[in-house]
Structure formats: structure tokens, C-alpha cells
């Protein structure tokens, strides 16, 4: 009852969605859109679980002297967005809500994203050492591709032909093979989930 019926539900809904794909009628189309809405609605209504988890952890930390300030900042940021965002119009440009979005969220997000420029360099420094055949292949390919920016006269011209070949032949082949493997692996896992063979995610008592 606590585990068997949910597993049965997984099997039935999964099978229904699988069959739906092959039936082109309006009915079938409706089931598809409607079921996608189920997933969306469950996802939205589950949000209080996340918020509760976040609030609880940070309210508890308010008692820890070293953490107090930071948790207060987090809670203040959260509340500020809730208070300024109550009206539908607050999603339009110019509102306090969107001003915070533009001047706090956007710059921080963009800056974290840009940290990648530094990390891609340090990762290359550490990983691209010719200590094995595989590492050497990785290193040489990445170097050839990066060298396309370096102006070295005739060497560069030859290098650019190599770049174009690498991209269209081995790189393309690698991508395709990895994708086909993923296709098989994901399909097998999904079939196992529907058949109830893969059920770890469900937990039990």
C-alpha cells in the first residue's frame, strides 16, 4: 500500500505515456498536455518543501554567532523579494522587484558564470599533462583547437585545416557515439523504472 501502489502508478502512467506517443488523435494529444501539467503543478506545489528547508536551516543558524549575520542577509533577501513581488505588475521593468533582480541577481549570476574563464585555465594547467596516452590525446587536441587564435603565419594556416578536420570528423564521431550510448542507457533505465525493477528512488519503511 505504501510502496506497491505507487510503483503500480509509475508503471501505469509510464506505459500510458509511452503508448500515447504513437497515437496521433486529439484525445492522445490532450492526455499528453494534461499530464505535462500534472508534472508542472506537482513541481510548483512542492516548492514550500524547499522554502521550509531553507528557512529552517537559516533560522536555526541565527542562534550561531558566526553565522547570524549571513543567515539574516539571506532571510532579508528572500523577504525583500516576497514583499516587493506581491503584485502581478512587479514583474514589469521599473518595479522595485525587478530593480533588485537587475542589480543584485543579474550581476552576481553573470560574475559566477564568468569565473569559468579562470577555472578553465587552472583546470587545463592541472589536467593537460602528458602522463598517459589518453591525457596526451586530450592535451594535444585541446592545444590544436586553442592554437587557432595564435597568429603564427604558415603554421597557423596548417593548424586551421587540422581544426576544421578535427571538428568535422573525430569530434563529430565521438559526439554521435556518446549520444547513442546515452540514448540506450537512458531508455534502459526508463524501461526499468516503468517495469518496477529500478525502484530505489521510491524508498520504503
Amino acid at each position, binding site marked *: 500500500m505504501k510502496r506497491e501502489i505507487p510503483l503500480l502508478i509509475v508503471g501505469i502512467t509510464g506505459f500510458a505515456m*509511452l503508448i500515447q*506517443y*504513437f*497515437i*496521433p*488523435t*486529439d484525445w492522445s494529444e490532450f492526455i499528453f498536455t494534461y499530464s505535462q501539467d500534472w*508534472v508542472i503543478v*506537482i*513541481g510548483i506545489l*512542492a*516548492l*514550500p*518543501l*524547499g*522554502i521550509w*528547508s*531553507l528557512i*529552517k*536551516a537559516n533560522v536555526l543558524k541565527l542562534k550561531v554567532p558566526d553565522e547570524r549575520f549571513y543567515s539574516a542577509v539571506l532571510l532579508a533577501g528572500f523577504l525583500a523579494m516576497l514583499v516587493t513581488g506581491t503584485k502581478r505588475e512587479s514583474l514589469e521593468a521599473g518595479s522595485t522587484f525587478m530593480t533588485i533582480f537587475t542589480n543584485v*541577481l543579474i550581476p*552576481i*549570476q553573470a560574475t*559566477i*558564470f564568468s*569565473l*569559468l574563464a579562470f*577555472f*578553465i585555465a*587552472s*583546470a*587545463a594547467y*592541472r*589536467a*593537460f599533462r602528458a602522463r598517459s596516452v589518453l591525457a596526451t590525446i*586530450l592535451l594535444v587536441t585541446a592545444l590544436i583547437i586553442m592554437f587557432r587564435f595564435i597568429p603564427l603565419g604558415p603554421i597557423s594556416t596548417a593548424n586551421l585545416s587540422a581544426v576544421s578536420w578535427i571538428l568535422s570528423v573525430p569530434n563529430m564521431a565521438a*559526439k554521435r557515439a*556518446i*549520444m*547513442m*550510448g*546515452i540514448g*540506450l*542507457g*537512458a*531508455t*534502459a*533505465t*526508463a*524501461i*526499468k*523504472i516503468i*517495469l518496477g*525493477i*529500478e525502484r*530505489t*528512488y*521510491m*524508498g*520504503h519503511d
Partner: protein
Amino acid sequence: MSLISRIIAAVMILACTGGGVLAQTPALETLADTLGPPAPMPPSHVVIKDKTNDAGHGLIITWELSVDDGGGRDNVIMYDIARSNSPDGEFTSRGIVPKGVNEYEDADDQAPTPTSPNPDYMAAGSTWYYRITAISDKQVRSETSDTAMGVTEENLFHWGKLPILVAVVLFTAYILNFIRSARKGKKLYVRPLAGINAVDDAIGRATEMGKPILYILGLGTAGDIATIAGFTILARVARRTAEYQTRVLVPVQDPVVLAVAQETVRTAYLEAGRPEQYNPDNVFYVTALQFPYVAAVNGIMLRERPATNFYMGVFYAESLILAETGNIAGSIQISGTDQVAQLPFFVAATDYTLIGEELYAASAYLSQEPVQLGTLKAQDYLKAIIMIVIILGAIAITGKWTFIREMVTINL
């Protein structure tokens, strides 16, 4: 030819009814004046068939080209397709196609609603009448073709998707078959995977160091298959950590993932016989957006200094930010994702990487249950079939035979 013209036709309908690509075509008035430029001969033999693989909202109209299209006076530049709901009713233009094309797909599946009535809607089982006119380069219209009739029909199976159905049935059959033979006790070999073998060592290391394990499920939802594979691996990891009494921290960014991850970890502690040691606060929600989530996880890595970081699931650009920060913190890192674009970064920056399909195989490996290992065998069989199709297909296409390629082509 026919596929292309179908696509043209489909797009033309949209263009003429909704977007109005060609709505600005100059008025195509007929020049009845016999002294004017000559009118082309009309197209003939109009045949109307149901559009297949649909819910009954479309018809395919074919005709024989006007004799002045590519021959005769050679003055046809396009055809106008007109429709009516009765043979004597008013015929209105549904679209045009360029010369040389003898097929048009007329479809409209926008059922009318109280707010948007749609008189052009083609209901399943409705009857329509068509006439085709050729138009010359001087905008002179031919006489109309004979009127032809067609009835829309609802189809119950999408034949264009047949190859996928065959693959599903074949795959399921193989999986069930290998599970059955595995249950009978047949021993199955699986080759070692470095990333899997490292899991136990990594947990042992955390125990020795007295530091926690950090388990990242990525940015996928609980419905993503890669995330579900991540849950299975999490269950194994959590079970070991329960046995060794090591903490496992799971920061997540989706509330449903939070619920499932908590349930997974709780069950793992239960199975390890230590339910009292399970702390639900170790699986916690951080925030929903990608980079704020990354910022928080980075902070955890540098402050908690986990002995081992796992990355299992769907990852985007954050893969390298996380992996490099984990490296700064001195953690051993094991990663696995089905995001092809992120694999290079995991391979470069983490100690072990499960590449694509290996992530899905990992749960079977870790369980060592014959039932799970059986599915790996099924995957290999499918892979062998794919390889045979590639070899035969490549040979066939070189000999200009397209039948193998067509066999694996999906016509949506």
C-alpha cells in the same frame, strides 16, 4: 520531392492563414481580355487523400501539372489551391505552391473556442472540396481544375514512428529475457569501471579523515532519467556512509528532488540498520537558480572541506566551477553526467568520470544484482544491432540504396 513539398505546403498554410508570408502577393486578378497575355492551361486530375498519421485535421491534395508548367508556353509560376465546404459554395484560397510542385497539404487543427472562432478548422470526418488554378508569370489565372472531394480521417497509429516502437519492443524483450536468465542463476560478466571501483575507496577515505561526503545531484528535475540514476547511486553511497558513520551532505535545487533524495537517504540508513542516525537536515534545499546554487555549493566545499564530492545527474556550465572548487578544497571527485557538452570538463577536473551511458550503468554495477546486470547485457545487444545497422547502412548508401536509412528514419 514529396516530403519537401509537403513541408512547403504545411508551412504555406501557416503563412497564409496565420503569419501572412504571402498575404502581400499582388492581387491575382484574372485578365479575361483575350488580347492580354495568354492564360496557362489548368492543372488536371486532382486527387485528395487523407493526411496520414494525424488526428483527422488535414488532407493531401495532388494534381497533374499544367501542360504549360515546364513545357508548352512554360509560363506557369505557381498554383493556387482553393477550398470550399460544398461543391457549389464559395471557394477561397488556402495557399499557393511554386511551379513544379504537384502536392499541397491543407491542415488546420485549431478547434474553435468561444474566444477564437476558427471557420477554417478541419474537424475529423469533415468533407471538403478543392479546385486548383495555375497562375502565369504575368499573373494570369488559368481556368480552375475540376472540383475534387476529400474527407478527413482520424488515424489511430502514427506509422512514421514505427521504428521507435520496434526499438522499444525489442529493447523491453531483451531486458526481460536477460533478467529471466539472470534470475535462473546464469553468471553475467561485467567489465570493471574505474569510477565505480573508486566509490568504496572514496567513502573509506572520508571515514578516515573524519570529513563529510558531498553529493550533488545536478540541475535536473526528479523526472530526468540522469537524476534518477543519481538517486540510485546516492542510495549506495548513503548506505555505506551509514555503515561507516560518515556524514553525507546533499544540497539540492528542486523541491521534488529534495523529497526524493531525503527518502532515498532515509531508506539507505534504514537498510544499513541505523535509522536513528539519519538526519533529514543533511539533505537540504539551497535555491532554485543555477548560479546562486553554485555559489552556495562552493561555499559549502570550502567551509566543510568534504573528503569526497560526487556529481551525478544533469549538469550545465556549473560543472567546471564546482569541480575546480572541489579541487581547491582538496576533495576526491567522482562525476557522471549525460550532458555531452560538460563531459570534457568533468574528465579534465575530476578524478573519475562516468561518461554518458556509464552513468546509467553505474546503478547496475553498484547493486551487483543479477536482475540489474541483465539489463546491461540487453544494452550491449542493442548496441551490437546499431553497429550492424551502421555498417550495412554505410555500405548501402555508398551503393546509393537508401532503404536502410529509410528504415531508421522517423517521419514526425
